[in-house]
C-alpha cells in the first residue's frame, strides 16, 4: 500500500535527479560525496556490530541496514544547536551527531544504560520504550521556545528538535499526545518517522490503512512523505521542516518510506513472517547504490575515492572489534551510583552489603 502513494523524491532508484516543484537539491558534490561516505561507514558499523553480536560480544543489536539514507539525509540537516531524540535503531543519527561507533556499542554490550553523553552530542541516548521520547522532544522544543531560542532570526541561535521513531510507534498514545502538544504550543519539533514497513513482525498496514504522513493534518501540522531511500530528498525535506521549526512556524511530521533490510534485532528471525520476494525487491532499491550510481556518473566518485572509503571502513571495523572487547566490565558497586542526587540510607546499606560480599570473595 504505502509505497504506491506519491512520495517526494529527488534522486530516483536509477540514480537520476528528479524534478520536484517544491523541493530542490541544495547540495554540492562535496557534500553529497560526504553523505555517500557517511552511508558506507554507517553500513559498515552496523554490519560490524551485527557480527560482534554473533560472536557473543554484544547482547543485542538493532540493525539500521537499509535505512542509511533516511538517517544520514535527515541527520546531516541538523545544526549544532539542535537536539535529537532517537530510538535504538538510529546509529546513523548518532554518527551524524559525532558519536564514536565504538562508544555506541557500550549499551549493546550491557555495560551501561546509555552509550554517550547526551548533552555533549546533543542527542539523547538509545530509547527503548516506543514513543516515550517523542514527548521529551516536544517538551525540549517547548523549552527552546520559552528560552527565546526560536524565531530570533539568528542562524546560529534558533533551535529545532527532531524526534525519530518507527511506523509501529505511530500507534502509541504517547506519539499522538506528542503531536497534540507540539501543535498546541507550535513547538519547534520535527517528527521523523522511518516507515521501514515493519514493526518486528507486523507490517505497517496493521497500524494504519492510510499513509502515516496523513496523520499530521488532523493534528494541525503539515505532513510530508518522502522516499526514505533517497538521501537528497530526505535531506531537503528535513532541512525545510527544521527551518520551519526554528523560525517559529511549528511542528512537521515527516514519513520516510524505507525498508528494514535486516532483522528487527539480532534476536529476530524475519523468515518467520515475511517473504523473500519483498527482501529481493528492496535490495534493488538500496539507498547507497543509487547515490553511488549518481556520483559515479558525475565523476565525483571514482575507484580511488571508493578505495579510500573502503579503507576507512575497514579500519573502523577493526577499531570497533578492538574497542568493544576493551570496555571495562562495570564495577559491581557502580550499580548503586546515581539513583538519587545525594546519598540514600537504604542504598548505602546495600552498597555496604555488596562491599562485604566482594571483600569475602576477594578473601577466598
Amino acid at each position, binding site marked *: 500500500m504505502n509505497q504506491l502513494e506519491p512520495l517526494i523524491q529527488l534522486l530516483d532508484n536509477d540514480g537520476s535527479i528528479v524534478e520536484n516543484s517544491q523541493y530542490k537539491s541544495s547540495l554540492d558534490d562535496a557534500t553529497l560525496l560526504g553523505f555517500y561516505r557517511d552511508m558506507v561507514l554507517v553500513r559498515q558499523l552496523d554490519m560490524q556490530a551485527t557480527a560482534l553480536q554473533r560472536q557473543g560480544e554484544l547482547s543485542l543489536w538493532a540493525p539500521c541496514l537499509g535505512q542509511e539514507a533516511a538517517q544520514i539525509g535527515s541527520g546531516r540537516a541538523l545544526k549544532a544547536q539542535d537536539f535529537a531524540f532517537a530510538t535504538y535503531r538510529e546509529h546513523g543519527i548518532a554518527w551524524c551527531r559525532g558519536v564514536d561507533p565504538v562508544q555506541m556499542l557500550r549499551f549493546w554490550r550491557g555495560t551501561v544504560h546509555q552509550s554517550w553523553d547526551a548533552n555533549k552530542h546533543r542527542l539523547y541516548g538509545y530509547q527503548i520504550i516506543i514513543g*516515550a521520547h517523542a514527548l*521529551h522532544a516536544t517538551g525540549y522544543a517547548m523549552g527552546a521556545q*520559552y528560552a527565546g531560542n526560536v524565531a530570533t532570526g539568528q542562524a546560529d541561535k534558533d533551535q529545532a528538535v527532531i524526534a525519530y521513531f518507527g511506523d509501529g510507534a505511530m500507534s502509541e498514545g504517547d506519539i499522538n499526545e506528542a503531536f497534540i502538544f507540539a501543535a498546541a504550543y507550535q513547538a519547534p519539533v520535527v517528527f521523523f518517522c522511518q516507515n521501514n514497513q515493519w514493526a518486528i513482525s507486523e507490517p505497517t498496514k496493521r497500524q494504519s490503512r492510510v499513509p502515516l504522513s496523513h496523520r499530521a493534518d488532523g493534528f494541525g501540522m503539515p505532513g510530508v512523505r518522502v522516499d526514505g531511500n533517497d538521501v537528497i530528498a530526505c535531506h531537503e525535506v528535513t532541512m525545510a521542516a527544521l527551518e520551519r521549526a526554528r523560525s517559529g512556524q511549528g511542528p512537521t511530521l515527516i514519513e520516510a518510506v524505507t525498508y528494514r533490510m535486516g532483522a528487527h534485532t539480532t534476536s529476530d528471525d524475519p523468515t518467520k513472517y515475511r517473504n523473500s520476494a519483498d527482501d529481493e525487491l528492496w535490495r534493488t532499491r538500496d539507498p547507497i547504490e543509487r547515490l553511488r550510481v549518481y556520483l559515479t556518473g558525475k565523476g565525483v566518485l571514482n575507484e580511488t575515492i571508493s578505495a579510500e572509503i573502503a579503507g576507512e571502513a575497514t579500519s573502523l571495523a577493526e577499531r570497533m572489534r578492538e574497542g568493544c572487547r576493551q570496555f571495562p566490565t562495570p564495577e559491581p558497586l557502580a550499580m548503586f551510583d*546515581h*539513583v538519587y542526587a545525594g546519598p540514600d540510607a537504604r542504598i548505602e546499606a546495600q552498597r555496604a552489603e555488596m562491599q562485604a560480599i566482594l571483600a569475602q570473595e576477594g578473601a577466598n
Partner: protein
Amino acid sequence: MEELTIIGAINKGLRRAMDADPKVLLMGEDIGKLGGVFRATEGLQKDFGENRVIDTPLAESGIVGTAIGLALYGYRPVVEIQFDGFVYPAFDQIVVQVARMRYRTAGVLHLPITIRMPYGGGIGSVEHHGESPEAYFASTPGLRVITCADPSDAYWMIQQAIASDDPVIFLEPKRRYWQKGQVDTNGDMSTAVPMNGAKVLVEGADCTLICYGPTVATALQAASMAAEEGVHLEVINLRSLSPLDLATLNTSVMKTGRAIVVHEASSSGGIGGEVGQCLMQSCFYHLKAPVLRVTGYDTPYPPSRNENRYLPDADRILDAVEKSMSY
C-alpha cells in the same frame, strides 16, 4: 507568622519558588485562569504569565512527558495532576522515565521535576477522587515521595521539592486542604525541617503511631483520646514515604516497643507493610507486639456514602492500640 490553610500555603510556596528561580514552571490541566480545581495555583498565571503557568492539553502522559523535555532543557517543571485517580495514564512516564533518568545516564541527565497531586478520600466525591496511590511511587527507585499534613510543612516542603535535584512526588491531603495553621512565611528554607525526615509530633512512652498526610489529624485525635485514658501514644508524622526516615522510627519504637501504622491506602502492599517489615528488622528484640496496621481495606475505594467507614478513624486506631497493648 501568618495563618494559612494547607492549600493557601501551597499557593504561597509555589509563588515563592517561582520568584526565587525563573526556571520554575507550572504545568497542568486548568491551572491557569481557573487556578486549578482546588485553587493551588490561583493568581499565578496572572502574575507570571502563560509561559510559566502553562495550561496543558488534557493528556497526563503528555504533561509529564513534556515536563521531562523541559527539565532536560534546564527548567524545573512543577506538574499538577488534577486528582490522584488521573495519574495512571502518566505512570509509564513517571516510573520508567522520570524515576530513572539519572540512573540511566549515570548522572549526566537529571530531572528536577515535582509532581503535585491531591490524594486521599473523605471529600464525598465520585469514583477516582479519593485514592491513595502512594505505594506505587514509594516502591519505585529513583523517586522521592513526600506528603504534608499542615500548612507549615505544605509551605516549606513544596519549596524543598522544587529545589530538589531529584524528582519528587508531592502528595497533598485533599480533605485537609482547608485546615489552618501558622506559617513563618518570612523564614528561610534552609532552617525548615528537611523534607526527607519524619517528625515526632507528640511524645509518648506506650506505643508509636506512625501516620502521614490525611491520617495525621486522625492520629493526633486518637492520641489525645488515649491520653485521657492514661495511655501515652507517640505520634510520628512520616512526611517522607520514600526514603523512609527509619532512624526516627527506630528511636521511637525502641522506646515504646509497639507501633501502629495508619494510612488510607489499602493494607496489602501499602506503606504500612514496608514500615512494619523495616521495624521488625531493626527493632526485633524491642518489639513487644507485632507492628499493626490501621488502613483502608483491601477493596477499591468505595462509593462516598461509605467512605467514612473505609477511612481509618480514631476508634479503629484505639482498637489497634488496645490490641497492641494486649500482647
